[in-house]
């Protein structure tokens, strides 16, 4: 008799109880009771599910000693999948032959043995049927794309790096990528251990290159810099119509360069690796180019390295159950779930379709900025191609460049205003600006307290009341020769933005204000009176005197 007679319980109470029971016997008895009683479907399912679970757990037997006669073919299949030792498997096979000698069971064990032994020449290759034939009922949007199924065992070389520019300059991430590409290819070209990414060059032992790509207006001027940062070769295309990034021409040019461009140094099908920056434009370009080249893309990568990879996916190896080592695989780790997990993406050829170039876009700042070597030598190649007008159908009619923002660092003097201006905020800002105007290299700073207040400013000073003038922990850090803090209490979050200043002068009505502790001069007084005096003294040229006179410290 089981401990719980299910017929005496509501189903709601049974759930947790049943799921606690581990004894098959007991569960069987309960099942029998229920079936003999009301035979409620839900209860039967509940107990049967539990039975399955419990039975499943029990299955965790040692394969070497398992009693095969007690096991179903499915059980055996499950069991052998976990076994990696061929001898153990041979033994299981023998025992099955001596025992029930089931055909299905034997073929499961044999196929496991075969997959472990791998290359014995007898492997069954998956027969390749083009998808159009295999699934005639589906539409095949890529059927007419010559490259999709076309390229098998193509010839690939070199690491190509798209070097983005802004305002006629390389953006930092371009330099970072060149540095990493240099490092990767130097290793790659070294004779040594493939698991360390050392292949001694290509399949024939010839070194491969880092190829920098520049597209834009007047970009040839940047070619030397690309070499200094690590490129062996720079391919550039310049045209005034390329001044701004545009999807169509940039994609067409890049693809032509790396796939169709005929040059003696480019006697290969496509690049082995394509690297792009994961910037706004780089993300667009990388997706368009890799799509057009019918390969894949790992976007927003946070590292890159080259290594061999053991792969057992039959779609890639062509033989089920077999593992195969792939060489020269670019490993592309990238954050998933916005950085909560990482996956490493590999882009690997299939038996009937190549996946090259192996493409990645790289998060700016991922790699260290290399030191440029201006002595380095490299080739500079101009890409010649007529750019048809249709590529420029899209016209940019208006554009705006965002302000660089206010940079307070580098000033000799900063005059900062705090909530002490509350009585007349507009006048307070005016006084600060007037004082700052007395110096050559000076600007106005603000405490956060002012910026988050509900103060209303007249329009002529509003332009000064900007977040970018905030000094402190969540604003800018400055260290001018002279820092004048008017009506600022000196909260620690403000302090960390200014206490490296050479001389700190505080103006405050409250002699207990914290700022006094780290000021060189403390002027007790109303800023509305003190600031005009200081301004006046400066106009007359005796600032130091004026400060010394009014200061208490």
């Amino acid at each position, binding site marked *: 008799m089981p401990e719980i007679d299910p017929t005496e319980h509501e*189903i*709601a109470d049974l*759930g947790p109880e049943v799921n606690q029971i581990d004894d098959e016997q007991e569960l069987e008895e309960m099942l029998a009771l229920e079936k003999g009683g009301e035979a409620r479907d839900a209860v039967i399912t509940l107990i049967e599910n539990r039975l399955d679970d419990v039975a499943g757990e029990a299955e965790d037997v040692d394969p070497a000693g398992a009693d095969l006669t007690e096991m179903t073919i499915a059980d055996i299949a499950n069991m052998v999948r976990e076994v990696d030792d061929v001898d153990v498997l041979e033994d299981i096979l023998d025992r099955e032959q001596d025992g029930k000698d089931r055909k299905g069971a034997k073929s499961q064990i044999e196929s496991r043995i075969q997959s472990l032994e791998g290359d014995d020449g007898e492997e069954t290759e998956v027969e390749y049927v083009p998808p159009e034939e295999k699934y005639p009922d589906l539409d095949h949007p890529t059927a007419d794309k010559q490259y999709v199924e076309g390229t098998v065992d193509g010839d690939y070389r070199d690491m190509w790096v798209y070097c983005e520019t802004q305002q006629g300059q390389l953006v930092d991430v371009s330099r970072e990528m060149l540095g990493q590409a240099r490092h990767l290819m130097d290793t790659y070209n070294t004779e040594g251990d493939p698991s360390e990414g050392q292949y001694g060059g290509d399949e024939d032992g010839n070194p491969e290159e880092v190829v920098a790509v520049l597209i834009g207006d007047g970009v040839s001027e940047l070619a030397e810099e690309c070499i200094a940062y690590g490129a062996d070769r720079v391919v550039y295309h310049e045209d005034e119509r390329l001044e701004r990034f545009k999807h169509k021409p940039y994609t067409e040019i890049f693809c032509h360069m790396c796939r169709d461009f005929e040059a003696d140094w480019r006697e290969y099908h496509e690049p082995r690796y394509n690297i792009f920056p994961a910037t706004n434009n780089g993300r667009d370009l990388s997706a368009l180019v890799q799509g057009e080249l019918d390969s894949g893309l790992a976007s927003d990568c946070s590292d890159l390295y080259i290594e061999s990879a053991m792969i057992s996916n039959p779609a890639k190896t062509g033989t089920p159950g077999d593992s195969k080592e792939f060489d020269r695989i670019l490993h592309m780790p990238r954050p998933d779930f*916005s950085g*909560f997990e990482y996956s490493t993406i590999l882009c690997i050829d299939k038996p009937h379709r190549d996946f090259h170039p192996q493409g990645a876009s790289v998060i700016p700042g991922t790699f260290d900025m290399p030191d440029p070597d201006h002595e380095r030598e490299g080739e500079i190649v101009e890409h010649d191609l007529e750019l048809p007008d249709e590529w420029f159908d899209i016209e940019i009619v208006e554009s705006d460049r965002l302000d660089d923002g206010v940079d307070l660092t580098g000033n000799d003097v900063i005059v900062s205003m705090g909530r002490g201006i509350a009585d007349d905020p507009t006048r307070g800002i005016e006084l600060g600006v007037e004082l700052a105007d007395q110096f050559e290299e000076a600007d106005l700073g603000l405490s956060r*307290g002012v910026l*988050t207040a509900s103060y*209303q400013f007249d329009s002529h000073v509003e332009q000064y009341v900007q977040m970018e003038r905030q000094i402190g922990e969540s604003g800018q850090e400055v260290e001018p020769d002279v820092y004048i803090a008017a009506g600022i209490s000196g909260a*620690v979050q403000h302090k960390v933005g200014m206490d490296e200043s050479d001389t700190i002068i505080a103006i405050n009505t409250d002699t207990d204000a*914290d700022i006094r502790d780290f000021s060189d001069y403390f002027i007790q007084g109303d800023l509305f009176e003190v600031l005009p005096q200081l301004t006046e003294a400066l106009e007359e040229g005796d600032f130091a005197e004026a400060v010394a006179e009014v200061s208490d410290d």
Partner: protein
Amino acid sequence: MTKHEHYEALVVGCGPGGAAAAATLANQGVETLVLERGTDAGSKNVSGGLLYGEKSAPYTLDTLFPNFREEAAERPVGEYYIHNVAGRQVKTFDLHDIHHRDTEWCDAVLRRKMDSWLADRVHEMTRETGGGLLTNVRVNGLLRDGGEIVGVTLDELDPITADVIIAADGVNSELARDAGLMDWEDPEDWFQGVKAVVEMDPEVINERFGIDDDEGVAHLFSGDLFDGVRGGGFLYTNDQTLSVGTVFHLDSISEEQAEPHELLDNLLTHPLLDQWFQGEYEEREYAAKLVPDSKKVAHPSPHRGRLLLVGDAAGQMQAQGPIIKGMNHAVTAGGLAAEAFQEAKTRGDTNAAGELYERKLEEEGVLAKLRPKRYRATRAVSESSIVNKVGNAVLDSPVGSVGLKAAGKFGLLEKSFNSPFVLGMIPDTKMSYAVIPERIGEVMGTRVTDDNTVEPPELDDRIGDLTYDVDDPHIELQDNSFEASGTAVTACPVSAEDFGGGCYREETIKTNGGQEKVVSLDTQPCVECGTCAVVADTHWEHPSGGKGVEYKQG
């Protein structure tokens, strides 16, 4: 509808409620994903710190998580006293009986340590089911399909769908609000808790509290310490710190325009505490959070569609007189919600989980503890101010104090403090929190002669000592007039009148021809306590995952 990532169960929040729900789900093999906004579980959480393992509870943390008490808790608390204070006069009652009633064990806890310990286990357990725990993600709303709740939306990730969503996202639950199950309108529904974690060497604790390494004490305080604000104070011993704090009715804080940090300081600097501080005071952390009052807001039917609320999110926080029980009920509710889902699933109808959960709360007697019928019956009268006044009059008369003395002599008062029946009934009036204890202290108390010389830190230093990762403002002032939102200047635990460094600051601006009193808001010092969501006119959300304040103690 677009296809979203799907899990069998989503648990939002990894406090005690979420951890219990997730562990129970994982034990049943349910594929469970847990989402927590803190950079580490516990980094957002505060409690006073007494975690009860109730004998009658179907789920407790020590059974769900082996070694919980040894590894994640501080000291087991065996002694429990309440001090009735009137100036320097103090009368102490031993609340041993009520403390041990239905108590299997009771440990002091610090939430950062406890919750992050739980989270590690939860992650391991849920990983086994194909899910896991993600921190640094904030759920910002419910995902609906044709009006039905099917999942959640997040700041950091694409929407995720699930067969059941267990919202264990604590007080100010954005999910409960989104589902229309809770509003944040009435200050009467909430308490505000404020706490300081104070450093003290373990040996010093042992010596000054007269305990051993593996023993702890709880002291409660009520009476005239708190300028007439309704509520009380507590002090619990941890391994190497003390948790000292206050819990007040939010409506009382608002009405009295009290400054919560000052009320805490009143307690910290009271002569009675000199015996323990002896002139030394090193504050490790200042913290605050709203606490729901289950008597008023425990939701009788805390579910809607696939959404089940547990713990503070459902208002399941029981203030039984001075005893505060929130964490343990959150654990029970989490376990029951998970159990309800598993059962609904076995029946082939996961939609029945909510109903089952509600029934279990009822059957396990949880709801009866949270919303005692006695309270429902007495509240209407005892909280009206007339009764209050009569009560006051009685207490002020000589007869009143004779009565008290007599009651004291026969131990009646101590007895009634120790009666769950009386405690369940205690009306939330000034009389029960301040006036009666004060009279008890006055009439029966002995004088404390010590002088407490400690100086707790100023508010700006308290803020300065906290760790923040600030982001865009997560609270918007809808109405910045002083009438609408001025209460927050005082009630916000990190703001104060005449303090420029707080969240809420009172300002006078010139308008056409006049002056206007307004408030301005800077959310950087915000400790996300939830107070201004109730007392000011705001649009209130939690900061994005990992942003905002990070408690190291909790």
